[in-house]
């Protein structure tokens, strides 16, 4: 591909890059592992290349190699990194120092951690510019303020006076982008710049970054695991897996006509066909006017929340961080007794406190957690973890119990061989499957799923969602599915409750909730979810401006 392009416009040319690291497995001699295998790429001036892949794909490692940087013991052991016509790997430490912060700048995933808490933002934003002597302090500060304005930061004249902890996460991410742009580099490496943000904040930051790239003609490597996001900002996309190149092409080609099976799998992740079930006549679990707060605080985390769950169906609770969706789960399970309101189960009220509930009620409500690795006792084998509910609720012992454990392992598509393993010996997806088996072992009517897929890579998460739907059909179990991800909701829900600041702002069957007319918040939320569609970002931002103009 590189050969077909005019050499004059070439900014970055990475050839046969090989990156290794030394790992120290406990109790074993240190060994070398290869993180990146002979990857080559080119980037023209002013263009954006998206690097995409799951965790461990080597995308950040490749991005940082353009600055000659390796995190914690990571070494570039082969290939060339040609930037502005010279191989920077031959330049040595001084050479790296001269290009970092001047030719190439970096925007990290967590700006909150990447800013020094001891210095004012302005000092940090202009630091690289002053260091490389490309502008005087006054000029640099003027440039910074202009960038703050361009990135739509509030109070652009004075925000530089603040310290990092005085500014919100989304704003910090924009300040960091301004910091990268301030020294007018040729290339910026964006390393998952919006991943840590809530979806409604992400869209603004994304739009700001895109405008800034366009207006300053800077080239960028945009690293993310989210294809829909990268499709909005990049000209080309490179798909990576286990440190190897899978596919590289124009954005449209990658998302519309992927040539490789793996790319196709990544693109189609978001689509599960799930036929909505009509709500039955009687819900088996009703939450009525529940209000809750932590401690004796006046701040109510749940305000007057009412929802119903029907047998064998899925209620998805959607909201951003701080919306109270996880608190709702804690109120239903009795971990956080509500201050007011009731939870009825099978027509009778459930005791508020966990300690007051009979064993049978506990059995009927099971829970699956976001972080599977801390949801299992690391000192128990899979057989003990899955077998305990069988012993505890049904008094199963010995062979009977083992047989049932094997059955459950089959259900979650894991073999009998796993029963003697410890959680640390399982992959992320396998851990979550074991947690699912543990909750199924109790033969519950309801399983509460608290962000069960958000810590997993998209393909693995996809597998978990399919498994959950399959199990729902077989076992006729209902789910209360808590998530911040609307794509997941569309795939699995029968009805949806949208939560915002402790309140349910919209509630009903999926088809109704997801079709207009919308209330303001749901509209904002829905319009913020990136779609794998070129030009979606512009449309969404425009739609939003019209809406606010209409108000």
């Amino acid at each position, binding site marked *: 591909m590189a050969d077909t392009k005019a050499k004059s416009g070439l900014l970055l040319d990475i050839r046969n890059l090989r990156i290794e690291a030394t790992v120290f497995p406990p109790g074993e001699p240190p060994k070398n592992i290869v993180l990146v295998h002979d990857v080559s790429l080119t980037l023209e001036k002013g263009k954006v290349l998206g690097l995409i892949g799951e965790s461990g794909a080597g995308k950040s490692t490749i991005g940082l190699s353009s*600055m000659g*940087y390796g*995190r914690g013991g990571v070494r570039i052991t082969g290939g060339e990194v040609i930037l502005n016509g010279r191989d920077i790997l031959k330049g040595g430490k001084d050479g*790296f*120092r*001269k*290009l*970092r*912060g*001047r030719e190439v*700048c*970096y925007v*990290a995933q*967590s700006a909150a*951690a*990447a*800013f*020094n*808490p*001891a*210095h004012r933002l302005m000092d*940090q934003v202009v*630091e*690289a510019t002053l*260091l*490389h002597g490309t502008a005087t302090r006054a000029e640099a500060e003027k440039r910074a303020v202009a960038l703050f304005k361009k990135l739509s930061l509030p109070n652009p004249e004075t925000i530089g006076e*603040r*310290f990092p*902890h*005085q500014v919100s996460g989304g704003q910090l991410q924009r300040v960091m982008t301004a910091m990268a742009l301030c020294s007018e580099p040729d290339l910026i490496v964006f390393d998952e710049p919006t991943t840590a943000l809530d979806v409604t904040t992400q869209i603004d930051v994304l739009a700001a970054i895109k405008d800034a790239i366009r207006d300053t003609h800077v080239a960028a490597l945009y690293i993310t695991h989210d294809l829909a996001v990268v499709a909005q900002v990049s000209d080309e996309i490179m798909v990576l897996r286990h440190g190897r190149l899978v596919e590289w092409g124009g954005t449209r080609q990658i998302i519309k006509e992927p040539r490789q099976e793996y790319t196709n799998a990544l693109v189609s992740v978001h689509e599960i066909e799930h036929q909505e079930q009509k709500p039955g006549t009687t819900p088996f679990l009703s939450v009525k006017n529940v209000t809750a707060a932590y401690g004796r605080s006046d701040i109510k985390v749940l305000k007057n929340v009412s929802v119903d769950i029907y047998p064998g169906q899925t209620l998805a609770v959607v909201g951003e961080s701080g919306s109270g969706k996880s608190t709702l789960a804690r109120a239903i399970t009795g971990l956080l007794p509500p201050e007011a309101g009731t939870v009825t189960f099978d027509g009778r009220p459930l005791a508020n406190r966990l300690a007051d509930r009979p064993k049978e009620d506990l059995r009927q409500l099971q829970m699956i957690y976001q972080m599977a690795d801390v949801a299992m006792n690391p000192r128990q084998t899979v057989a003990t973890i899955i077998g305990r509910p069988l012993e505890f609720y049904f008094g199963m012992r010995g062979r009977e119990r083992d047989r049932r454990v094997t059955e459950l392992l089959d259900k979650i598509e894991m073999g009998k061989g796993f029963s003697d393993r410890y959680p640390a010996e399982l992959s992320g997806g396998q851990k979550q499957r074991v947690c699912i088996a543990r909750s199924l072992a109790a033969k519950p009517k309801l399983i509460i799923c608290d962000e069960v897929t958000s810590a997993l890579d998209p393909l693995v998460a996809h597998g978990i969602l399919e498994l959950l739907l399959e199990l729902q059909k077989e076992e006729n179990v209902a789910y209360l599915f808590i998530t911040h991800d609307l794509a997941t909701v569309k795939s699995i829900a029968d009805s949806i409750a949208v939560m915002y600041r402790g309140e349910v702002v919209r509630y009903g069957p999926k088809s109704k909730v997801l079709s207009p007319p919308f209330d303001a918040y749901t509209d904002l939320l829905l319009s913020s979810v990136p779609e794998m569609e070129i030009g979606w970002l512009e449309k969404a931002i425009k739609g939003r401006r019209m809406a606010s103009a209409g108000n």
Partner: protein
Amino acid sequence: MSSPILKLVAQRVALGILLLLAVSVLIFAGTQILPGDVAQAILGQSATPESLANLREQLGLNQPAYLRYFHWLGGVLTGDLGTAMSSGQDIATSIKGRLWNTLFLAFWAAIVAVPLAIILGLIAVRYRNGWVDKLISGLALASTSFPEFFIGYVLVYFFAVKWQIFPGISTVYDGMPFGERMQAIALPAAALTLVVLAHMMRMTRAAILNVMQSAYVETAELKGLSAFNVIRKHAFPNAIAPIINVVMLNLAYLIVGVVVVEVIFVYPGMGQYLVDHVTKRDVPVVQAVGLIFAAVYISLNIIADIAAIVANPRLRHPK
């Protein structure tokens, strides 16, 4: 602007004073816990009834404990530490010179130990996982295992007896010339330094490492700052509070080491005074000296906390 800091500092100081009061109760109670009679225990089974009665009178044992406590506390607050039972001397007078001697010794030990520990800690971080780091950690492990008197007597054995460079017994007196005084305290100060050095170094290393591994240090490196500037501008301002904390905690540790070191070198300080009077079961002296040690220890801990409060930008520049 600085009012939340002032408030926090004031709270911490108030808490410290409260703690000190509680400690005084504890020390007082600690000398009353003997089942039976202190006087009996002091004089032994063969004591005559008259001498027992005399001692009880002298100790004020005829009064209830809480009255004796308030009496004692009132004295302490007005600078009257009581009189020693064994010698009849005024405790405050005896302590004055000794306190000065102990502080003098601890001061010089700290002057050597603190910079040395910080520099060695920095070196350990700079060459992390290299042989220097391993050597330093190994020595640290060894020296935390050494009893103070082992270090002390090894120093005496070689420097005082074999090579005869420094005196093995640290005699000091009023009006002693500074040079001679320094020579006299050379070995005890060295012993004290070695006692706290390893621990302080290990903690400094951990504190700096913690800061060096943070994301903002990476940001600074990716701006093209030199290694020196990364440390000076970005790591140091954030490492200073934890380092002060480490130093203060170890100075507190130093005042415990001083007790044993003074006994080894027969140095006329607070530690030796305390040990002597514990052996003599001279309760008023033990109470007074114990309280002073506890007060110094608590004050150092308060300073460490205040340093952490003041150095925290979140508190210095509230939202």
